């Protein structure tokens, strides 16, 4: 079952779904919003990216983010120490928000994609796969790794005169994660995946 009509989610105009050239996107002719995309390998690419992202995410959790060297002592910091310190300063709400947007939501998003796409690639499906995929799509704006990375750079500049800051392994894997999530945003074609799910009915 292929969807023949699609409505723009920003202006409600109905369009006939037309075959697109490979690796291109269709936009609404009235308001310019993105309608659908055609990436023939969207399932494989998104799956590979999501698995890579999860691996990078684990590395970023184990290794220290930054080391701060001042007066002969070295202090290592991970994301978790930052949020623990915030919650100690009665900033639990902010700590939870930072933990969610920089760590948990990107993890859940990637995990949900793997949960849906891996079985799909092998021709299976797992229970609640539609709900998992919808969750991944909904979480996209709340995954803020790229903003967090910029935040780290700004803090490093601010502290540059105070101490020597040594980038840790986690920082590089986090940079990789940012690139992975940006690529998923580009190559994930939700319409293709929904239609693939419809084939199971």
């Amino acid at each position, binding site marked *: 079952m292929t969807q023949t009509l699609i409505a723009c989610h920003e*202006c409600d105009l*109905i369009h006939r779904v037309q075959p697109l050239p490979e690796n291109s996107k269709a936009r609404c002719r009235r308001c310019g919003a993105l309608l659908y995309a055609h990436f023939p390998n969207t399932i494989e690419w998104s799956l590979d990216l999501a698995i890579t992202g999860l691996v990078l995410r684990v590395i970023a959790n184990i290794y220290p983010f930054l080391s*701060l060297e001042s007066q002969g002592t070295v202090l290592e910091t991970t994301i978790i120490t930052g949020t623990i310190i915030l919650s100690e300063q009665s*900033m639990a709400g902010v700590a939870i928000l*930072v933990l969610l947007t920089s760590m948990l939501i990107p993890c859940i998003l990637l995990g949900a994609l793997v949960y849906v796409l891996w079985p799909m690639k092998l021709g299976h499906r797992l229970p609640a796969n539609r709900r998992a995929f919808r969750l991944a799509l909904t979480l996209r704006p709340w995954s803020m790794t790229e*903003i967090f990375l*910029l935040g780290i750079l700004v803090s490093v500049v601010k502290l540059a005169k105070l101490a020597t800051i040594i980038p840790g392994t986690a920082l590089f894997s986090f940079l990789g994660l940012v690139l992975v999530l940006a690529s998923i945003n580009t190559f994930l074609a939700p319409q293709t995946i929904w239609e693939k799910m419809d084939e199971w009915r």
Partner: protein
Amino acid sequence: MAMIRGHAVHTAARSGLFNCHGCRLLVRRPSADGQMLVRCPRCGTRLHLRKPNSIARTWALLIAAMIFYIPANLLPVTITTYLGSTQPDTIMSGVIFFMQTGSWGIALIIFVASIVVPIAKLIVLIGLLVSVQRRSHWRPAERTRLYRITELVGRWSMLDVFVVTVLVALVRLGYLTTIEAGSGVVYFAAVVVITMIAAMTFDPRLIWDALEKNDESPAH
């Protein structure tokens, strides 16, 4: 083709179709109008012709954001202690610090992300709400694009919240210098989250509904 107002336009709502918000499936609207709960057969999202109570909810969120915006800017976001002396910093004094130390690029990034973007977002969303309530016909495509940009850029205001977190984590007790988070950051984080939800709650299709004749505009 450009759609001129008054001419027949094929929108999902006018064709009696729900445009599923979760998966974009077009679902025929049941003929009985009393139907309260209709869910998408493909992804299970609750179906509406338009986001429910979009205008009232967006207004409420924007007003809350405007109230929180005041303490967010007046209260310190960081409190630095250096050799016994304490220095509270607001968002703006943080920007000024970067300017004074010659980091113009960083000063500009923080100024845009923490001050320009939240204010612009509030102004744009209020403008869109007023234009929809007045059933304005003025440049719908441009207003929709403005909405799209607002929704895309708003997340970047989280920058300052992350900066404070990293600073607090790096500069810890036991050093001559310590940095503590100030209560301003709580209000600022609230402003960012609330305006993000406000942008998601606003339904840009209302901009286009105003171009149709009054009696034909769809209810939710």
